[in-house]
Each structure stands twice: as C-alpha cells, then as structure tokens.
C-alpha cells in the first residue's frame, strides 16, 4: 500500500518540480529542495500552485499538512469574565451578519452556569452557580500537527498569511464535521444554515471578541503554545485521512 | 559641529516624547506634573546627562516645544510652587482646580467645593467626600478646618445639616436655603436608597 502510494507521490513530484520551478523562481528561491522543504512550501503557496496547476491541487495525492506557526492568539482571563457573552455576539454578528452564539468561535456560554465540567458539583463548581469563575474557551491555533486541519479529508483548513491563523476555507469544506471530532477542546463550530464548519481566524489581526469585551478579559497576543497547558474537553474521535497519514510517516521517517 | 547638532536634535525629540508621556501618564493617574519631577525623571533615565546648565537649557526648550506641539498638554498658572502641567485628554479643568487648590489652600478648597456643589447641581456635600480621593483628609484634619471656618468671616456661608442617618452635610447659604439643603441631604443620604 505504502509503495503504491509512494509511487504515486513520486510521479506527481516530477510534474510538481516543473511548476515548483516557476513558483520558486517568482519567489526568488532557486535552491534545490528536499522533499521536506517542498511540503513546507506547498503549505505556504498552495494558492499559487493551485492557480498554476489546478489538477495538481485538487484530488491530488499530496495532502496539505500545516507546518507554519500562527503569529497571534487570543488569551483569556477568567477572573475578569462577567458572563455577558458579548464576545460570542461580536464574533458572529460582525463576521457572519447574524447573532448566533452557538457557532461563535470563542465559546463561553457552555461554561457560564456550571463551569467546564458541566454538571452541578455543589459549591466546588465554577460558573455562576459555583464560585463565579467563567472559563472562556479559545482556539489555540495549534502548532503542527494541527488536529482539525489534519483530520479534514478535503484540506479545507488552511493557513492565512501573514498571521497564519488556521482558517476554514468554505469553498473546500464539505460539511463532514470531522474537524469537530478532532479538536480536543471542541473549538470547531458548525454553521448548519450554511453546512460549513468555521473556526477562529483571529479576525485578520483585530479580533472582534477582544474589541467587544466590556471587562478587558481578552487580549490579543503573540502566539504561544497552549496545547499542553489547557486540559482537553473531549476525547478526539476523528480519523486521519490515509493520504495524510502516509505523508506524516514519509516526512518523519527521514 | 553638525554631528553634535544631530545628536542634540535626536536627544531633544526623545526628551519631548518623555515629557509628553510623563504628563499624560500622571494625568491619567490623577496627578499634576511639575517641572522638577519631569526633569528628575529625565535624569534618572539617563536621557539628560552631563553639564547641569546645558541640561536645564535643553529641558526648558524641549518643554516649551512639547507644549506648543501637543494640543492636549496644558500649563497651569504658577501659584508660587512652579507651574503645573496636565493633559486635557485625561484630566478636566475642574479636576485640576481641585488639585491646585489642594496644594495651596485646603480651607478654601473645601469651601469652593461646597459652594460649587450648592450652586451648580445644586446639592449639599457629604463630609465623607473629603475623606476620599482626591481630598484624602482625615477626620481630625477635616474637623480642624471646619472649626477654623466657623471663626473666619470669609466662610460665614458654609453651614452644616445632619440627616436622619446621622451624617453631616455641608452647604453654602449663598446658594441653598437651610430647608432646601437639609431636604437634599436627606435625599442623597437616605431617600435615594429607599427609592432604588
């Protein structure tokens, strides 16, 4: 299976080298590239390659694996959260033109009453019915390997330069919800009115939620890795598409 | 010669930045800035160094230019302790009046606050007000001033009224009649809380 897959990849690479030459030339990069660098670069200029060789990008056996790190992240202070949900409202109203906190890309309501654990645990609860603390759940703009992006069978989660926020490309999203199952913190939203997934994209550097918070509980900061600091909400049950799995092994074997 | 001039220009721009930032920062924190304070800050941060007289001259030049350049930066008249500065972006004129008066004549400050409240809103003033920021007077200090006022001609208009909750309010008889003042004091001390 692997060899066949490998052969496929090899053929495409020869074609891709020609295209790549053009792309690299325009970028001013003329060095010989290792496969690893090629994979990295394909993340960067996937749009460029798509424009030059649509056949290559669509249904190509070469999957998208995000390598770039995000440049920014939204951080939250739970002690300042006053439970007003204006962040959820700003996220959806100012981005989607409708108030729909259930698909907000910052998630607060699920923790407001009883805290992240959800059930009433008496006086040790968090939330309005416990000690008052409200935990705001935010996308960590995960470093590689990006769970939601890697789970997507159609490479619909991409990076958007210059911030490299991990963004759902609605043109590619087929609405399978695999990304939702992949995120350990349940941060993916699904807009059933459009049948598309959506997630925090940092609002091009001016996050609406940060702007909207009346208690200064949110800040927009340089990216830092929170993936090992915040306990997960759920056990991810997504499956890695085979082509991506192959790419992982391929890359890491070297 | 031109090198020194360039350096001097650079330094001057830095000094201007610091002066502006310092005045604004202090205004935001509810304080007026004085020449000495700003000058000292520049020394502490090593922006001004070397010859004292030269530094002073440079500072004064930069200060004047700062005031001219930024609309929000204002100079208050010298009341004998040197001029004060504030930023109208962060502080209002009425607040500067309180701060200035606090430095020079506390007795007059209390009277002016009472008179202004009695005329403008109008309402009497709780003694508690003078215990809080920006007045920060202790009970003893306040009582001392009240006693002094009672003796002086110029403060004959400053009167007291006590509410049903036992709290003392001051008013100026120039602007409020006794009945009126006591009714208003009662409202602010008791009535408004009974009418949430």
């Amino acid at each position, binding site marked *: 299976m692997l060899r066949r897959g490998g052969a496929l990849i090899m053929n495409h690479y020869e074609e891709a080298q020609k295209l790549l030459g053009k792309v690299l030339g325009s970028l001013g990069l003329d060095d010989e590239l290792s496969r690893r660098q090629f994979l990295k670069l394909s993340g960067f200029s996937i749009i460029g390659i798509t424009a030059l060789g649509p056949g290559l990008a669509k249904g190509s056996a070469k999957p998208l694996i995000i390598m770039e790190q995000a440049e920014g992240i939204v951080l939250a202070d739970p002690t300042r959260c006053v439970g*007003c949900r204006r962040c959820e409202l700003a996220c959806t109203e100012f981005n989607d033109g409708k108030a729909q906190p259930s698909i907000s890309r910052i998630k607060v309501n699920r923790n407001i009453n009883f805290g992240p654990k959800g059930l009433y645990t008496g006086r040790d609860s968090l939330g309005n019915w416990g000690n008052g603390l409200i935990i705001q759940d935010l996308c960590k703009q995960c470093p590689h390997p990006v769970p939601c992006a890697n789970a997507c069978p159609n490479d619909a989660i991409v990076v958007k330069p210059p911030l490299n926020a991990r963004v759902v490309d609605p043109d590619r999203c087929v609405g399978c919800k695999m990304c939702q199952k992949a995120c350990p913190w349940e941060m993916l939203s699904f807009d059933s009115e459009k049948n598309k997934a959506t997630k925090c994209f940092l609002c091009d550097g001016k996050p609406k939620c940060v702007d909207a918070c009346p208690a200064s509980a949110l800040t927009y900061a340089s990216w830092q890795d929170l993936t090992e600091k915040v306990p997960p909400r759920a056990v991810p049950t997504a499956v890695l598409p085979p082509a991506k799995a192959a790419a992982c092994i391929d890359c890491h074997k070297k | 010669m031109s090198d020194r001039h360039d350096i001097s220009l650079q330094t001057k721009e830095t000094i201007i930045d610091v002066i502006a930032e310092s005045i604004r920062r202090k205004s935001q924190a509810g304080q007026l800035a004085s020449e000495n304070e700003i000058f000292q800050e520049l020394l502490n941060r090593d922006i001004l160094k070397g010859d004292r007289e030269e530094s002073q001259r440079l500072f004064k030049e930069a200060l004047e230019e700062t005031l001219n350049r930024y609309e929000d930066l204002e100079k208050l008249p010298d009341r004998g302790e040197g001029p004060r500065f504030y930023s109208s972006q962060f502080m209002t004129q009425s607040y500067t009046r309180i701060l200035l008066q606090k430095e020079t004549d506390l007795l007059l400050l209390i009277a002016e606050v009472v008179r202004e409240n009695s005329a403008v*809103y*109008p309402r009497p003033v709780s003694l508690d007000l003078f215990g809080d920021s920006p007045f920060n007077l202790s009970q003893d200090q306040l009582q001392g001033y009240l006693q002094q006022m009672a003796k002086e001609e110029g403060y004959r208009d400053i009167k007291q009224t006590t509410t049903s909750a036992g709290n003392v309010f001051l008013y100026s008889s120039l602007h409020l009649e006794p009945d009126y003042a006591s009714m208003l004091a009662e409202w602010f001390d008791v009535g408004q809380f009974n009418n949430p």
Partner: protein
Amino acid sequence: MAKHGGWAGKVLRIDLSTGRISSEDTVEKYKDVLGGTGLGYKVLWEEVAPGTKPFDPANKIVFGTGPLAGTGAPCNGRTAITTLWPTCWPKPLVASGHMGGQFAAELKYAGYDGIIIEGKADRPVYVSIMDKKVEIKDARHLWGQGIRRTTVELSQQFGPEVCVAAIGQAGENLIPMSVVMNAYSHSAGGVGAVMGSKNLKAIAVHGTGSVTIAGKKEEWEKLVKLHLSLLGANNQHVVPSSPQPWAEYYSPGSRWKGSRGNKWGASEPAIDTGICDPHDLNTIAYRTNNAAFYLGDIAWKYTVRGNGCTGCPIRCHTMIKVPSVAAKYGISEVGMNTCGGLNFGRSFFRKFPDGARGMTSMEACMVGMHMSDDYGLWCNYSQLQRDFLKLYETGIIKNKLGEKEFNSYSWDKYEKSDPSFLFELLPRIALKQGELATALGLGTGYMLETWSLSEEEWKKDNRLSYWKMGHPKHHASEEVGQCGVIINTQYNRDPQCHSHCNFTRNGLPLELQKRLAAETWGTQDAIDALGSYTPMNIGKARMAKWSLIRKELHDSLSLCNWMGPWVASPLKERGYRGDDSMESMLYSVATGDPKSREELDRVGERIFLLHRALTIRDMGTKEMSTQHDTVPEWVYNDQEKRPAYTKGTTHLGRDDVKLAMGMFYEEMGWDKTTGAPRAETYRRLGLAKVAEELGKKGLLG
C-alpha cells in the same frame, strides 16, 4: 430561518389544558406591537374576556421578547411577562412583570419571539423548548422544590446551557407575592402564582439558532459601537460618583462607582476597577457596583464581580462573597442580585446595630436573597417590607394574630435586627403558614381588606410609599414632581418606568439638564431641580408622555428600562448629549424595517394605548380620572405644612395635579375630564377595532 431581521419568526402557543402546541407567525400577526408587553396586551385584549380572574384557566400568561433580544444591541436581555395580575386590588387587571437573565436570548435562538401559555395542566408540568422541539413534561418530581433545585435538575437533564425560568414554592402555593426566576437571580415579580395556578413549574429553553441582522454587518457594528460609546453606568448615570480626573462632574447619587483604588476585592486575585474613562469601552463592566452603592464601600471587599443579562455590558447584578454567612446562617457564601432583590432581606429591619452600611445589613441581604430567590417571593418594590414594618410598629400584628402564632415568632431577634429572624418569616410566607404569612403573601390591597385595615391610612403615610390598587409608587413626586405623579397613575401595579428618573438622576448639573430637556421635550421647564418644584407646564406633560411611551417601547423591543433612554451621555465632547433616536436606529438596522424616532414612538404609543384600552374595558368604566388615575394623599402633604413649591419640599398642590392630569390627557389625545382615549386617537394609532369594541360598550372618550 426568519425572513425579517430581529424577530425569530414564531410565537409559541401552548395550551396546558389540551396539551396542544402550535405557533404563529410573529411578523404577520404581531409586528404592529413589536413583542414584549405589546404582544402581551394584544393577546389579552383579543383572547381574555373581561371578568376573568388571574387563577382562572382562561387567564393567559404571555412571555414576550422583542426583535432586539438576543442581538448585540447593548442592554437587550429582557422578557416581559403579561397577565391578569394577582395583587391588583380590588379588581384584577392587566399588568406585566419583567425578567432579565438569559431567557430572552435563549428563546430567540430557539426560534421563538414569545410564548402564550393558556389553560391549566391537570398535574404539575414543565415546558421544554430545545430549538424546534417543544414538549410538555411531567414536573411532579420538581413540585415542592425551590427554584434552585428545579434549575439544577433540569440542567442535568438538558445540559448546562439550558435556561430555566421556574417558580418556587410561593408560586406553587398560589401566593400572589411570588415571582418566576431564571439565571440564578433574575426575577419577574407578581406572576409566579399565575404559573402555579396553571400547574406550570418551569419553562426550560435552549436554542442553537440565529437572530438575523437585516442591515449590513459593518453598519450594525458601527451602530452598536455608537450605542456603547453613549452608555453610562447602571440607570444611565453619566457621571462618576466621586471626583475623577477624567470627569468634569460627579454625583453621590450615581452608580458609577468604579474608579482607581476600588477593587473587586473577593476576586482572586483582587481586580482594581481602574480609571473607568467613558471612552474606554473595554471597561464598561467595571463602572457599576450596586452592592457598594446600596451597602456602602464596605461591599468592595466582598465583591467578586458584576453579573447580569445576556448581552449587557453594564453587569448590574453584583456578585458578593461573604464568608461569615456560611458559618453563621448555614447558607452559601456567594449571592448576587440588584436593587430590590439585593435589599430584600435587610428591608425588613428598621435599623441595624452597626448601621445601614455595616456587616449585619449585608448579612441580612445575603440571608434574604438566599430564601427569596429560591422560594420565589416577591417584594412588590419593597412594599412587603414597608407593610411589615408598619404592621409591627403599630401593634397590628400583635392584635391580629392569636397568642399562639404571635409567640411562635422570635420578636426579640427581630427587635435586635438579627438576620436569622428571616428564617422564621420568609419560608412561612412562601408556604402560607399562619395568619401573618398568609396576609403578607396576598399583597397590600388584599391584606388590608382581609385585616379590615384602611387603605386611606396607607395612602396618608408617606413612609409607606403606597400609591393605589395594592401597589407602591415607583419614582413619583418625591423626585420627579408632576411627571412622576402622572406616570404612577397609569398602571395597574407600580409603573416600572425609569425613563424619567434615569434622566433626572444622571448626575449632571442643572443647567446642562435643562439644556438637554429643552432639546428633547421642547422646553427647559420640563424638569425642575429636585425639591425646587414649579407648577405644571406643557413640557412636563410631554416628558410624561415620552417616559411612558419609551417604557413600553423598551419592554416590547427588549431593551432594558434601567438603562435608557439615552438622552444624556458621559461624553463632554458631545455636550453630554446621548442620542434620543438610539432605539429607532437599532430597530431599523436590526429588522430592516426603517422607522424614524417619531414613527417608532407611535408604535410605542399604540402599545401603551392598548394597555389603557384593556384597563378601561376590564374596569367597565371610562371614568379613569376618578376611578383609576388616582393620587394618594401623601403627595399633597408636607410634614411641616409648608406651601407647595417652596424650596425644600416635594409635595404638590391638588389643583396643580389636576391640571397636570388634564394636560397629560390632552397631550395623549384623551378626553380631558375622564381620561378615556377618544375614538380618533385609537384610529390614529391603528387601533380602530379596539375603538369599535369600546364604542359598543360606551367606553370611549
């Protein structure tokens, strides 16, 4: 999905007698009355016959939100609950309660603008609304439990995001002085027993849908930011409570308590509320601290943070943590509420050994909230407590109670203002145990009747704040002269109107106030300085009309009555002007139905007129001036017998008040003598059918 912006699109109708659940198109049927109280009055007019009593199955209870509920419009989290009012005396008439919290938003996201509850279930039930799935379910396991347990159990069943509006034992026991409550501390007074009479324990709602904004999202964002920029603190007070560097003015009457040095002391670690400059929209939540406002600066140490309705940045429900009450009284150390709810417990006591702003007072508040917000007791704007004080201090309680019942209360504890006394009193009221509890639970009117006490006595004593029909004044002549009097005559309970006093108490100096008044109501004479009243004039009539219309508009749009209208703002660069067309701008962009300020005010007037029509019809008289719009004696009295309009007095002249009412009637297009609206007024406001019906009964002006 909704075709219009704002409205979710459907009004739910639930018949508890038959179990039938249906829905109607909101815009088709109710657009002309918007929602909220408008929806409530329309349903009651068309579907509830005069003569119906509050606990009859034929009574309906209408939970109404408005097109702005659930959006990002600041201060929108309100639900109006309209029904025939149990404490309205001597004859029950239409009135509304108002509830904040999470309910309005959740209902909108579930796809509904309102719920009409009809009939009576044959056993205790609750209603669950999970998006489009609406069910009537068995509540027998919840019946007898408090509001808190009910909420927690339903949350365990439906998930932590569900919003539960529930009644406690008070509502179940048909105590008229009862509430429905959601989101821990947000109650609507007076309606609990109506739900109880229908065997309706709770409504649990959760929605994952959307509320569409018709306008362009950039336009909406700009408008929301404009609104935010004009906000003050709670009650739209626009100056800080003490001198601040950024402020020209200040007022000890202002709820803008946040400032450098004042900390949310019980947050871990403590949070300084900071400068609270009005230009900083990211610190709006720090301005208001109602615990500090009512309980004194001592409360800062115990403040965890602010809390409140969905979407509102003000956070007027202060959350306080008072560790001493856990050991002393065995209750939770965390409590939260605002205004009357916060003060529920301490209002029973005349004075405390350590003063009105000491620890005992705060503990009494904690004990009070713990019980009133769980049993679901209503205070009727603290009339319950004022009545209790009068009854005790005049010896009436001792006279009316048998010796056994009288001695069953620890009056020595009460005399010492020991908060633990409340454990003896409050549960008994909720559980209807004993004569005292039963009488107090009836509401003032029926209590006076039951104990053969004179309403005239109640109307003379201005300490009681009693107005008429079993209810107290609510911001009347003691602060807004004739305008306040007019407003208080208009309803069948206390008016719950703050349009006028939000303005007069905003803290600005008189000259600025008069300038704003001139711009808004045509003349600076519309307002007087507090305690320096002048005779009636047309400006005051206009201000009264505006106040009432805006109250109904807010209740029907879903905008908070404690945070608007926005005549004034804290911004010096605007001359402290707000924008009086804030409501109409928000409405227009959100719904896509463009209305000017005047056009939307006409809709508000229509809604208010419907309330008037309902009252006239159900009273069966058009003689409103003498039969309904009455003024208690204390309004005309001064302790020291000074003439009216003397500086330092707040009483008014009889003839002047008569003039005031006449001017108001004229301003409204009502008969100048009777106060009954004329046919052409109804027609002008799109209520021709109403005029027809009233005409048949001879009830037109």
